[in-house]
Every structure is written in structure tokens, then in C-alpha cells.
């Protein structure tokens, strides 16, 4: 099925295009818009972006595979990213990851059976001074404690 943006997102794209001297420059912003709507970057999304911006599908494909945040396959409804890099690890990121795996019953890189949560580790998210931390969808959760992690995950499970 062909992919198309919602009218609001289409308007946003028109706004984005005014910012750059080339259409290609909108590749990443447009992919974000598409992924926001679709959850992941499907073959249809790649075709859509390619046509919208007059760039070859191979170009779009190359961009998608380069950047970590573009999902190349469907993911859960919520994204949990736990920072694993050294400054967070010095303050207990290892325990945070273990607690998430246990509570969700999955390993890092997996999605819960009900499709609600995908758990992944992230590299330094610029919050080392408020470690340990994790990102859930678009929100940062910092200075994590076992109680807070439990509450956050429970909320996701019940969503």
C-alpha cells in the first residue's frame, strides 16, 4: 500500500522545504515525519521520500541504514532506550538494564509479546550528570531509582 503523510505532516514538510537550498536536505527531517506516523521506515516510506524529494530510492535507503534511530523493521508501541555508556555505567546503568529486562521479560533488542515495548540500549544521551537515565519515547527520565523505573515500566505495560 502506498504511503502518504497526514495533511498536518504534509504542511510541516512544506515548511521544512523552505529552510534549505536543496530538496535532498529534507531527507532526514522527512524520514522522521514518516517514522513518527508509521512507526518504522518501510519500503513504501522509502519510495515516498524518494519521490517527494526527487532523490533516488538508493539514496534514501543509504541514509536509513546509516542512522541508528531509523527503525528498519516494525517496533513496539513504546521505545525504551537505556543509556549504557561509561558515565551512566559508573552510576548503575547495568542494574537499570537488568531491571528492565526482568520486569519486561525480554532481552535488550527485543519487543514484548504484546507489542507494547521495545527495549534497547543507547550510547551517551548527554545526561551523564543525571545518571543513570533512560529515554522513553520522546521523554528523558533521569536520576533513576529502582522505584521510578518500576513505575515508568508499569505505566507502559498498562498503556
Amino acid at each position: 500500500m502506498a504511503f502518504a503523510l497526514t495533511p498536518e505532516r504534509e504542511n510541516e514538510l512544506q515548511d521544512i522545504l523552505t529552510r534549505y537550498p536543496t530538496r535532498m536536505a529534507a531527507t532526514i527531517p522527512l524520514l522522521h515525519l514518516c517514522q513518527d506516523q508509521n512507526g518504522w521506515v518501510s519500503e513504501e516510506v522509502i519510495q515516498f521520500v524518494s519521490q517527494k524529494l526527487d532523490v533516488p530510492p538508493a539514496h534514501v535507503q543509504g541514509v536509513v541504514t546509516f542512522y541508528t534511530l531509523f527503525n528498519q523493521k516494525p517496533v513496539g508501541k513504546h521505545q525504551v532506550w537505556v543509556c549504557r555508556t561509561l558515565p551512566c555505567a559508573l552510576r548503575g546503568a547495568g542494574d537499570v538494564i537488568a531491571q528492565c529486562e526482568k520486569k519486561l521479560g525480554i532481552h535488550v533488542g527485543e519487543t514484548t509479546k504484546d507489542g507494547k515495548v521495545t527495549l534497547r540500549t543507547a550510547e551517551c544521551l548527554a545526561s551523564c550528570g543525571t545518571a543513570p537515565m533512560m529515554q522513553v519515547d520522546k521523554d528523558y527520565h533521569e536520576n533513576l531509582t529502582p522505584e521510578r523505573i518500576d513505575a515508568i515500566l508499569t505505566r507502559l505495560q498498562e498503556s
Partner: protein
Amino acid sequence: MLRRTDYLTKVYALGHSLEVYERQVQGYQAARKVLLTMTREHVVDEAKKANIRGRGGAGFPMGIKWSFMRPHPTKPAYLVINADEGEPGTHKDRTLMELNPHSIIEGCIIGCYAIGANVAYIYVRDELHLSKERLWGAIKEARAKGYLGKTPFGKNYPIEVHVHTGAGAYICGEETSLLNSLEGRRGEPRLKPPFPAQAGAFGCPTTVNNLETIATVPAAFMLGCENYSKLSALHHIGDGGVRLYGINGHVKKPCVVELAVGPTINELIYDIGGGILGDKPLMCVIPGGSSTPLLRADEVVNAPDEKSPLHAWHGKSVMDVPLGVDTMRGVGTMLGTCCITVMAEGTDPVLAMLNLMQFYHHESCGQCTPCREGSAWLDRTVQKLYDGQGTTDDIALLADLANNIMGNTLCAFGEGTAMPALAFLKKYRKEFEAYATGARTKAQARLTVD
């Protein structure tokens, strides 16, 4: 010497609106003055006097970088602001975007004018949603007031500022990779030359400044650039002004703080950071992001030569040397991003190195063989030692791998991987050997303080 200042951070507790910025810190007065009373050349000459060393890690003098920009007969110029903030251990730029976004917009106005650009792009890593929101909000407010747009402050010099986002790649913090990413391409670093000042964004003359670098510009012009520089304890060696310092890892009070340039690591840890967790002794510090080689607590300055800029600290602890671009180079490391990662005694250096090598392995863009293969082998070989499967030959292999990266890659990511690896190997040789002989095992390895 520790001296708290609040040029950038005064509004942190007061609010991020334009109204607060104007009322509390005379916001936009500097940009107004620059646009209405100064020529481009004059702005660049003034800026040089501020001695603002790039806050992105390399410490290049900002004014000199601006002076590389020459008007092109047919092409426009661009200002690109690097807010990719991905260097492990770095958490300062984010606070500016969230809590003082107008200082960035005002800095962009002055920067655009100084380099002859009409458009600035602020490249923010995608994960920082609140930062992007605050920046767009500030842009909107500034436009509504007529500070951005066709005639900022009534001057016939159009300036627009846009926020552009990445999509999760540390390498996009490297300036030429960032430019490729801005153009909608894979974030692979470009061969230099040409340098961005000759052919940067969209093939046009471009200046890339770190986000804090540009945010500090309005304060410099408000005070007068030379006065601003003199705030620093290192003004006399061309390292001026004030900076944000981050403190993370095993301290009681991790934070971001604004200080006059030149505090010591000990001051950051004990006077600002509240000391070490559990009052443990210090083991080592990574001074400015994971790509800067660590300093051990027991290292002393070796500068017997009276002409050495570090001679005054000869025989003293490296933790008592003022943090500056050249002073840190003098003690064999780099200042980097001014965010220190503190490790208490008892931290396992092999596990710490493994954590970082996993990072570099994951983030190498793969264009150069020594970096792509080297980072993968470094990761695998430290893992092997950590798992108790390694021998002393593997320690030698690690050093070979790192040395083979040095000088053989397209961008500084290579050195940023190899230098910290070599520092771990050299400075914690005994611990690596203990893993190789089985005297130490991962069962005891810890990164946290209990």
C-alpha cells in the same frame, strides 16, 4: 582557581523566555550593538580578543576561525552550530538549549553577521526533543520581536536561524560528517581539504561552531571582548572567558556549573562535586569526554624546564593544574569538552575500557579500514581479556591495534578511539596483566561504588 560566574547560567533558574532574557541579562543588547554600530571586520577583530577557544573539544580559537571566512562572489555563506553533543561524558550544551536558548539565538545573529552569513543551522541530535522545542520557541519569539528576519533590529541584513536534527550517530558531531548529514546524506566525514570555510554546507563557505562557543558570544560582546577574556585565569595564554564545566561519575553531586576558565580537577571534584561517593580515594579522571586520555590520581607534572608553561606546577599533582586547552595538552591529554568523568578507587579499568571500546566499535562510520577494523578488534580483544580468555600477547595486540589507527584515518574519531585506549593500557598495565594471568577475574569487576 575557582571562580563562579553566571553570564550564561543566571537565567537557568529564572526562565527561558525572551522577556526574562532581556530583563535579567540585557539580552539582545550585544547583537543590537554589533549590527547597528560595527562593521563585519570590526566584529571579527573584537571576537579574536575574547580568546574563546572552541568549546566542542578541539579548542581552536573562535575569532581566528571566523576570520577564515571570505566573501564568495556567487555563493552564500552559512553558520552551522554543532549541538550533536554525543561525546560520552558531555552534558553541558543541552543545559543551554533547555534553559538559555536565547543566548544561542543571539550568538547566531552576531556570528552570522561576522562571517557574512544570512542563515544559521543549529544541528541538534534528535534525542534532545526538549532542546529542539526550546530552540524553536526562542526563534519564534525573536522573529516576532524583529530580531530575526529581513531586517533584524532595523538593519538591512536578513538573518534566519533553523533547527536541523540528526538521527542517532555520534560521528555526526565531527564537523564534515555533520555537514553531510545537514545536506541529507549519510553522516560520513569528508576528506579535508577543502575545509568548511572554503567548501562547507551545500558546497558554500561555512563556519562550524560548537553550541556553547556561540552561546558565549553575547556575553563577550556585552563585557567587551578583552574584558571577557580577562575573566579567565588563563587569559595570559590565550584561553579566555568563562565556560560550562560538567562533573559526572563517582562524585556526590554531579552537575553542570559555570566558572571562569581555569579551575583544577581537584576543585571540580571536591569544591563543586561534593567529593567522591563513599569518601573513597580518587582513582582516575577522564578530563573532557571519552576521547581524551585519562589522568591517574597519582600522576605528577613533569616540567623541569623553566620555560615550560607548566613549570609552576612541576612536581605537583596533575589534579591541581588549571584546566585549559594548552595546560591539558602539556600533561599529555586534552581538555576536550570540559566535562570530567570521575572514577573512584575500586573501579575496574579493564571493564571501563571495554565499555568505551564497545562505544567506538558501535559508532565508527566504517569508511577507513584501520578505524573500522581496529575499533572492532579493540572491542573484541578487551572482551577476551575480560572474559579470562586472553594472554599477555593480547595486551600487546591491543597496543598495536591502537597504534595502527593513529594517523591513518580520515577523521579524528580514529585518534579519539586510539588515544584513550593507549592511556588505559599504559596507565593500568598491571590490571590488564592480572586479567591475562588469571590473577584477576570479571567476577570481582565493578564500575559502581557501593
